[in-house]
Each structure stands twice: as structure tokens, then as C-alpha cells.
């Protein structure tokens, strides 16, 4: 008998540190995709700019902390407000466009944000990004406040569990956000406001003929998704402990769409599950010891997302939890 070409280590299942990382990333994607779900699944807005919202949120937060000395806890809500304003400013002209133009303009806007971050070196650190300032011998990092909070939480957990995983506090915060977001958005959908949104998704003219100011609703939808994008941007920044333009490339948005369609359009709980599945798939394959180079493994992971996207769209466009009747993808 020939040997199996690959070896699967059992270590995979017990490396908690590794899996915490995977779950944090999955959670971050869940947060940003909740916003995407609101836009695409419930308002019919094909928004390809989520990575841009993440970048605006993260960079604004870090710049406020590092340049103006503001506390992290003040910088965050301000950055959220800034991202929301950004979303509204983009939305006002862009939301009048039809779906494919809107997709392209949002993608272009996100890229402009990323390129601006890359090139405005004095403000954003360029390709090196933002982390810490060294001023007068003192080091100030944007996540200092978070670290102390995180350490306190870890200290507390140590009462029950010796040597807890250092990512645990972030993991808890991220997934608490996912949970709250999912519940809140689910609730909002069942309200009259949510009803108008679904009407806008399906047939804007019908909604207008019934007296609904559809532009206003689209802007509100975009604003909420900007907030979620900003939060995801914060979490990513705290997770990576740096903010660089490379972290906000269009591929982030594309992966979010992967999560979206995997979980299912018009399903908020699908988002969390889709995120976990996709990232487990992507990262879990690191534990499969294939006789190939690291580079090829990376390429393979990329290809997996592509196959998932195509496979879903071809054979199960409603994803895991989506409902066929609610699918307005065919227009």
C-alpha cells in the first residue's frame, strides 16, 4: 500500500492559541458582513466598499490617538461618527446610480481610501502604517488603553483558568459585538422601517409610489453598515496591533461577500456561521501537511474561496440559511 500523501496532525484540534486567532478573524468578518448583509441582502445595495469603511474607521481612530493624544475610548466613537459621515457623503451621489455602477463606485472609493492611506505618508505612515509614536523617549501606541483593559480582563479570568489565551478578551469583545449586532439587526428587520427597506430592495419604484423616501432609507442603510465597518476596522487594528493599507485591500470585501453568500442572503445568523465556516476552512488547512510550499498553500487557499463562490452561485445561491423566495439576486 502506498503512503497517504498528506498527514493530518491531531495537534490541529488542541492548539487553542491558533484557533482563537481564527475565531477572532471570523468574528471581525462577521461584524463587517452584518453590515454587508443589511446593504445587499436587505436593501438591495451592492456595496463593494466595506474595506473602505474599515480603513476609515481604523485610521481615524489611530490618528486621533497618536496625533491628538485623545484617549482611545473617545477616539473610537469619534471615528465611528467620521466613518458614518463618510458613508453618507459617498452615498448621496452614489445611491442614485444603478446596481452595477454603485458596485464599481463603492469599490473605487474604497481603493481611493486605501491609496490615500498609502500615499499620505505624513498622516498615515504610508506603507509602514500606524502603530506607535516615539516622542521624547516615550512610546505611545494607539492600543495602549486597550492593552491595559485586556490585561485586566485576563487577570480576572486567571481566577478560573490558569494561563488563559491572550486573545481571549478581544475574542469576547468581538463576538459580543457579533451577537448584539445580529440580534439588533434581526429585530430591526421586523419593524416597519425594516419593511420599507425590503420594499426598497425589491422594487424601489413601488416603494416611492407608496410615499416612501427611498433615498433616505438607502442612506440610513449605508450609514449603519459604515458603523459596523468601522467597528470591524477597530477590531482588526487591535488584533494586528498595526494599521497598514494592505489590510484593507479589495480582497477583504470580496471575502466578506464570500461569507455573505455562504451564510445566505437575507439571513443575519447565517453571517456568523458563514464566517466561522469560511475561516475555519481557510485557516484550518494550515494544519494539513501537504507536500507543497507555503506559497502554493496560500494559492490553494485563495482558490478555495473562488471555488466556494462559484459553487454556491451555481448550485445553491441562497447559501446555507438564505431563503429562495427572498432572493432578489436575479434582476
Amino acid at each position, binding site marked *: 500500500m502506498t503512503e497517504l500523501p498528506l498527514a493530518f496532525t491531531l495537534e490541529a484540534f488542541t492548539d487553542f492559541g491558533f484557533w482563537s486567532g481564527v475565531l477572532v478573524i471570523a468574528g471581525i468578518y462577521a461584524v463587517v458582513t452584518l453590515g454587508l448583509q443589511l446593504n445587499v441582502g436587505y436593501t438591495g445595495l451592492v456595496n463593494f466598499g466595506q474595506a473602505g469603511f474599515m480603513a476609515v474607521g481604523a485610521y481615524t481612530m489611530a490618528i486621533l490617538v497618536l496625533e491628538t493624544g485623545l484617549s482611545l475610548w473617545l477616539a473610537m466613537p469619534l471615528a465611528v461618527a467620521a466613518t458614518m459621515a463618510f458613508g453618507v457623503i459617498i452615498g448621496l451621489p452614489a445611491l442614485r446610480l444603478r446596481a452595477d455602477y454603485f458596485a464599481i463606485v463603492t469599490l473605487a472609493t474604497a481603493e481611493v481610501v486605501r491609496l490615500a492611506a498609502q500615499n499620505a505618508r505624513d498622516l498615515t505612515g504610508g506603507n509602514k502604517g500606524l502603530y506607535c509614536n516615539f516622542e521624547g523617549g516615550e512610546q505611545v501606541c494607539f492600543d495602549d488603553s486597550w492593552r491595559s483593559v485586556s490585561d485586566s480582563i485576563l487577570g480576572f479570568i486567571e481566577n478560573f483558568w490558569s494561563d488563559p489565551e491572550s486573545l481571549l478578551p478581544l475574542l469576547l469583545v468581538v463576538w459580543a459585538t457579533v451577537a448584539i449586532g445580529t440580534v439588533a439587526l434581526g429585530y430591526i428587520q421586523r419593524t416597519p*422601517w425594516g419593511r420599507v427597506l425590503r420594499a426598497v430592495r*425589491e422594487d424601489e419604484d413601488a416603494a416611492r*409610489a407608496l410615499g416612501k423616501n427611498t433615498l433616505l432609507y438607502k442612506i440610513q442603510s449605508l450609514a449603519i453598515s459604515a458603523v459596523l465597518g468601522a467597528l470591524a476596522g477597530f477590531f482588526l487594528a487591535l488584533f494586528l496591533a498595526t494599521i497598514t493599507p494592505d489590510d484593507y485591500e479589495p480582497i477583504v470585501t470580496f471575502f466578506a461577500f464570500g461569507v455573505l453568500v455562504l451564510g445566505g442572503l437575507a439571513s443575519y445568523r447565517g453571517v456568523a456561521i458563514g464566517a466561522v465556516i469560511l475561516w475555519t476552512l481557510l485557516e484550518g488547512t494550515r494544519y494539513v501537511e501537504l507536500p507543497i510550499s507555503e506559497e502554493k498553500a496560500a494559492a490553494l487557499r485563495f482558490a478555495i474561496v473562488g471555488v466556494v463562490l462559484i459553487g454556491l452561485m451555481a448550485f445553491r445561491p441562497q447559501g446555507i440559511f438564505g431563503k429562495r423566495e427572498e432572493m432578489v439576486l436575479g434582476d
Partner: protein
Amino acid sequence: MATEATDTVASPAPSTGGVLLDVSDVVKRFGGIHAVDGASFEISEGSISALIGPNGAGKTTLFHVITGFQRGDRGSVRFAGEEVLRMPAYAIARRGMVRTFQITKALAAMPVIDNMMLAAPDQPGERFRNLLFRPRAVRSREGQVRERAAELLEVFGLSDLSDAYAGTLSGGQRKLLELARALMAEPRLLLLDEPMAGINPTLGRRLLDHMQRLRRERGMTFLFIEHDMEVVMNHSDRVIVMAEGRVIADGEPHRVREDPAVIDAYLGGSA
């Protein structure tokens, strides 16, 4: 109730009020083509009027301009005394001028009851801030709206389909739904674009009965585009004829039918 088989030949009912809709010299151009080329007429409150004309006369375009779905280039449209020519469509609908579409726009991916509740006016729950700060007002109005929706569905015989996705309804049922939904919006003037198209005569009868009853009982005003001459002649107080973007005749159905200009327009092949 739902199945009153009233034999209706509409005698010109006296208008209950003054001029509700005043369309004056409206022009709408598409590039070089004047789809609407100076159309003028008045609609009195409580009347049922038909807008007819050969294909390409500009009727639907005029509807679009009147209701804000297209921007008129010139002219004036006054609804209840207010100029609405350049007003956005949703604002016009809120003022009580509601329209339906040639191809029914039943929101297929939503249940019938949601379609209905969507149309109710004055819903605090539709404003995001009220969701947070006035939950009780939201809930109570929602209850009212649901009741009214159920009533209307009953009247139109669609109660059994209340929870079904509108996309599963037949063509005729969708037409009824669209009418019922338009009524939920409590309009003063209802503009119907070819309400009889594609539905069987019995159903058509029912629709016309509803129209007459609504006019009688609530003084609702109707303006509909129609190609079915039997409907036009027997169920409208007044007929407005359009050809090549202009109004060429305007008056009682039988008088209009004899008007040489009208006969010419239909036979002369204007397009």
C-alpha cells in the same frame, strides 16, 4: 361584502368637489422626441375619468410626469392647489396622489400582508429614531395598520393569501393586491395604469365595482388609462383623449366617441 354583483353603468355622477388635479401645458421631451407635447386637463374631486388614446400617445409618460416618476420639462401640475411638477414621487404619493403601474409591482419577495402594511400612511415605525425612542407608539400603530390591512384583504377576497409571498399569486390576484395596497395608502386621487389589462372579465367587474363604491362612499377620485372601450364607455364620467402627446378631446364618453378628431387619431395611425 366581497362579492356584490352590482350592475354598474356609471351615469355621470356629480362631482363632489372642486378641481383636484389641474394639468396645464405639460411638456416632456426625450432627446428630440416630445412624448408629451402640451397636455392640459382638469380632474374634479369625486369623478372617474378615463385617459385613452392610440399607442405612443404619451399617456403613460404623462402619468409618470404627473406622479413624479419623470421630470416634466415645462408646464404645471397642481394637485389640491399645490404645484407638484418637480416634486419627487414619494412626496406626491404622500399628498394623496397614488398610482399603480402597467406591469403590477407586487413585491414578490414579501408576504401579501407585508405588501399591504407597507402602504399605510403615517407609520411612526418607519422612522429609525422612533424605533429607539417611541417603541410604544410604533407598536400601537402597527397593530392598527395590521387590522386595517386585514379588513381590506377581506374586502378584496385575499384574506386566505395573507401570509403567502406575493410572488406566488396569480396575475389577477396581484392586480387585486395592487389595488388593495393602493387603497391602504388612503389616496384622494388614484391613478390606475391599465387596471383591466390581462385579467378575466369577472375579476374586472369586481375591480370596477370597488371603484364605483369607493367613489360613492368616500368621494375618491379616479383617473385610469385603459384600452378596453367597454370599460371606458360604461364606467367613466369623462374621457380624455390623447394623441401625439396632446389632449385632443375631453368630455362625456359618448360625445367623445363621435368626435371626428378622435376617430381620426385612432384610424389615421398616429404613432
